[in-house]
C-alpha cells in the first residue's frame, strides 16, 4: 500500500507535474473585477485562435511558397526580403512558410495526443476507480511503471523503434498522456464515489454505464479538460524535444522542434533560425498555459 505522497503523485503525473500543480497558485486571492477575469480567458483564447488560423489558413491566404523544395539560389536571404518576410533558410525555403507548417504539425500532434489521453486515459481511470476490485491495483501498477520511467526516455525509444513520423510521434507521446489522464480521472472518481449522490444513484439501481456517463463524466470533465489544455503546452514542448533530437517530425518536413535543432548549428551566424521558431513555440505554449490556468481558477478545480 502506498503512502500519502502517492495520493499527490496521482494528481501529478511525471511530465505533466510542473503545470499541473503550479496552477494551484491561480486561486483568486484578491477579489478580482469581472473584466480582469474575462480578459484572463479571452486573451489566451484570442492568441490560440490567431495561431490556429495563422498556421492552418495562413499559408493559403498569404500565398506563401511551399515549406520544402525551395531554390538553393535563394538560400539564407535576410529578414524582410522581397517575397520572404522572415527570409529563407540554408536551403532556400521560406522561413515563414516553414514556421506556419511546423505549427500545423505541432498543433495537430498536441491535439491528437490530448484527445487520445482524455478519452482513453480518462475512461480507464474512471473505470479503475469505479469498479475498483482486482482491476484497480493492476491498472495502477501498470501506470506506476510508466510514472517511474523518465517520460522522454521511453518516448525516445518508442519514437526510434517506430521510426520518426507524425503518427508515430503521436503514438509515443499518447503513451504518457493516457497514463497521466488515467491517474487524474481515477483520483477524481475516487473522491466522487464517497459523495451522497453517488450512493443515491447506486441505491436507486442506476446501471453502471449510466452512472459513469451521467454522474461521473460530467463531474470529472472540467478537471480533465483543464488538464488537457495544460497538456497541449506540455505536448507541444515534448514534440519539440523529440524533433529536436531528430526523432519527431522527420526533416525536410518542418516542425518547430526540428527547425530549432537545425538552427542550433548556425546559432552564432544567424540566431533568427533558432529564435523565430522558439518564439512561436513559446507564445503558443504560454497561451495554452494561461487558458488552462484561467479555466482552473474559474471552475475552481485543482
Amino acid at each position, binding site marked *: 500500500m*502506498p503512502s500519502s505522497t502517492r495520493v499527490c503523485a496521482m494528481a501529478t503525473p511525471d511530465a505533466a507535474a510542473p503545470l499541473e500543480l*503550479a496552477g494551484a497558485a491561480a486561486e483568486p486571492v484578491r477579489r478580482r473585477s469581472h473584466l480582469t477575469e474575462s480578459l484572463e480567458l479571452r486573451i489566451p483564447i484570442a492568441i490560440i485562435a490567431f495561431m490556429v488560423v495563422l498556421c492552418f489558413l495562413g499559408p493559403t491566404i498569404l500565398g506563401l511558397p511551399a515549406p520544402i523544395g525551395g531554390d538553393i539560389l535563394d538560400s539564407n536571404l535576410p529578414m524582410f526580403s522581397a517575397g520572404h518576410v522572415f527570409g529563407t533558410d540554408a536551403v532556400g525555403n521560406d522561413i515563414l512558410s516553414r514556421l506556419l507548417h511546423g505549427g500545423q504539425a505541432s498543433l495537430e500532434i498536441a491535439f491528437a495526443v490530448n484527445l487520445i489521453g482524455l478519452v482513453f486515459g480518462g475512461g480507464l481511470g474512471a473505470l479503475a476507480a469505479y469498479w475498483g476490485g482486482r482491476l484497480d491495483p493492476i491498472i495502477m501498477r501498470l501506470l506506476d511503471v510508466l510514472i517511474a520511467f523518465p517520460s522522454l526516455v521511453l518516448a525516445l525509444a518508442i519514437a526510434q523503434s517506430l521510426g520518426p513520423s507524425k503518427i508515430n510521434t503521436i503514438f509515443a507521446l499518447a503513451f504518457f498522456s493516457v497514463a497521466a489522464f488515467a491517474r487524474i480521472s481515477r483520483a477524481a472518481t475516487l473522491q466522487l464515489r464517497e459523495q451522497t449522490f453517488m450512493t443515491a444513484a447506486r441505491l436507486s439501481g442506476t446501471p453502471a454505464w449510466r452512472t459513469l456517463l451521467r454522474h461521473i463524466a460530467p463531474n470529472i470533465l472540467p478537471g480533465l479538460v483543464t488538464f488537457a489544455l495544460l497538456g497541449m503546452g506540455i505536448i507541444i514542448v515534448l514534440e519539440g524535444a523529440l524533433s529536436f533530437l531528430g526523432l519527431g517530425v522527420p526533416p525536410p518536413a518542418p516542425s518547430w522542434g526540428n527547425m530549432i535543432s537545425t538552427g542550433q548549428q548556425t546559432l552564432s551566424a544567424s540566431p533568427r533560425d533558432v529564435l523565430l521558431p*522558439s518564439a512561436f513555440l*513559446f507564445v503558443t505554449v504560454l497561451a495554452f498555459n494561461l487558458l488552462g490556468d484561467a479555466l482552473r481558477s474559474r471552475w475552481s478545480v485543482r
Partner: protein
Amino acid sequence: MTASPTLAPSRRDSTPGVLYSPAVRLIGRRLLAAIPVLWGVTLLTFIVVQALPGSAAQQLLGPNATPEQVQQLEAQLGTDRSMIVRYLDWLGGVLTGDLGSSLSDGRAVTEVIGSALGVTAELVLLALVVSLALTVPIALLAARRPGGVVDRISMAVSMVGLSIANYVLALVLVWVFAVQLAVLPAIGFVPIGDGILDNLRSLVLPAIAIGFPLFCFYTRLLRADILEQMQGQDYVTTARAKGIGPWRVLTRHAFRNSLFGLLTIVGLNLGTLIGATVIIEQIFALPGVGRELLQAISNRNIPVIEGIVLVFAVVVVVANLVTDLLYAVLDPRVRHGNT
C-alpha cells in the same frame, strides 16, 4: 486501495522494538512495493529496445558489413540468443549486482554509468540548489502581500518560465552569454579536478536551463501553499490572536508547514528532472548519463540502456521513499504516529 494514506501507522504500533517502528515498517513496505514496479520498468525497456530496428552488431559494423560478419559478431556478443534467454540472463546478473557489459566497447555497465553519473548528479544538484535558494525568499515575499508588486511580478515571471521549453531556454542562454557576451563557454565540461571555478563555469548555463523552470514551478507552488495556510488554518489565527507579527507568522508558522508540500514535490519531481538532463546534456555536450543513454539508444546497446533506465527508476523510487521518511523525521505528528 491505493489512495489511502499509509503514513498513519496502524493501531498495533504500541508494540515496542525497532522492527515494529512505523518508519521501519514503512521502509519495508515501500521497498517491497517498489520491486514489481522496477521489474516492470526493466521488462518494458527490454521489449521497447528489442523492437528497435537494426541490431547492435549491425550498428557497430556499419552499413557495409556482410551478413556473415554481422552474424559472427552477434554470436560473439551473445545477441543471437532469444530475447527471453537474454532478458533472464540479464535479470539474473542484476540480482547479483552485475549489470552486464557494454556491447560497443566491452566496458562494464556499472563503470559506464559510474563515470557519467557524477556529471549528471552535479548538474541536477546545482539546478536544485539554485532553484530552491531563490524560491524560498521570493515565495515568502510574494505571499506577504498577495496581489502586491512582488507577487504580481513573480507570478508573471514564473508563468513565462513554465511556458518556455528547457531546450529553447538553453539555446537562448547560449546565444546571450556565450555568443553575444562571450563570458561563459557554450559547450563542454570541465571536471571538478581541473579547477572548481572552471567546473562551475561549464555547468552554469545548463544548470540555469534546468533550474529556472524548476524555480518557477516551486515558487508558484510554495506561494499557493503558504497562502492556503495563512487563510484557513486555526494555528495561524491563534498565532495572530496572540499578537505575533504578520511576518513572523508567515515565516515561523505558515512557511514551516508549507515546507512539507514543497518537499514532496521536489522528491516526486526528480524523475522529470532527470528526463530534462537528457536533452540539456546533449545541447551542452556534457558527458553525463543522459548523453550515454542517447548514444546507447542509437547504438542499440541494450545492457547500457537497461542499466541507465534501471538507475533512473531506482533514483525515482528512492527519492519518493526518502521524501516520505523526511516527513516522518520533520513532522512530529507522523513521527509519533498520532496523525
